[in-house]
């Protein structure tokens, strides 16, 4: 098997395996995805990190921010988020698959990755009420 295909297939284990947490996506047209496109019997899952490093533009120093980063296997998605779209995402606020899912919004910061191996990295935000 081509190594890239093998790496993409491995995402089932590395992103969606026992480390995975359930994610619900709602695209800009309002269509909800709860199940994996690769395996419609199972929930859509992905890797969720609850903080990430970034550069503070004021100081140029690397800082840790407590906003989540969600990495999903592209082939498991019905529709791939692109820059400029607003999506709703629901997933647990803590790394527990049974925890209550909180509503996040995917807006502003564009998705990253996906071109080389087949995963996409999303930066959802906890929104405020207008």
């Amino acid at each position, binding site marked *: 098997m081509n190594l890239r295909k093998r790496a993409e297939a491995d995402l089932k284990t590395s992103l969606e395996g026992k480390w995975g947490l359930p994610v619900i996506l709602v695209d800009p047209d309002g269509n909800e995805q709860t199940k994996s496109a690769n395996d419609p019997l199972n929930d859509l899952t992905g890797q969720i990190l609850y903080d990430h490093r970034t550069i503070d533009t004021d100081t140029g120093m690397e800082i840790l921010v407590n906003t989540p980063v969600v990495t999903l296997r592209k082939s498991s998605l019905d529709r791939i988020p692109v820059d400029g779209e607003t999506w709703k995402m629901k997933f647990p606020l803590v790394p527990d698959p049974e925890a209550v899912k909180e509503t996040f919004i995917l*807006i*502003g910061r564009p998705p990253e990755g996906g071109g080389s191996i087949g995963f996409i990295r999303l930066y959802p935000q906890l*929104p405020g*009420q207008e």
Partner: protein
Amino acid sequence: MQFQQVRDAIIATLGADSAALPAVNQFRVISYQRQAESAVSALNQSIQVFYNAGDFPKSGGSFVGDSVKHKPTFRLEMTVASKAKGNLSGLEAATTPAEASAALATFFEASSIVDKAMDQLWSDVWNILMDAKNETFDLPIGAISSRWVSGFQKDNPTPKGEIVLLTANAILSCDVDEEVIGVTGTLGVDFDVTVSDINGDTEQKTGTAGTLGET
């Protein structure tokens, strides 16, 4: 100095007039230059007012006891911050794709919200500072003159996690007259040395009493 009264008067005026604004437009007034401000605390829009520079043009009268002309510059640092906002309750309650899509369309990214919020804050602050009733900031007539907002500069939005921060600054200048009052030092110990005649030297009136020639 007089500029300190002017600074306090500007802060008091901004605070009082902010309270008269619609609740969503009100802002906090901070009377000094903060070392740092967290993005979360900046969610309440604020303005820092502080004395930034002073110009003292030289004049002949100043040497003979007239007041000294002082052109103080006050710096106004404005900060706003926001998360992405929209019809969150509508999005949570949506039961059909059409309702969810409509609710999603109401969301604006944080940088768009803070840009509009800063424009509104600046509009309110400028209108307060340049309001005719605030020409002397409630100080006595003559205490301040030529107040003028001479510039405004908006910085780039900076994301701090999911909160986007936007700062801007403006310059307020005016003329005040300063009186040189001197400085009252710490009182020392009273002493009294009376030397009327040291070995017949009637010119020596001060110094340590003793016999001339002593070391």
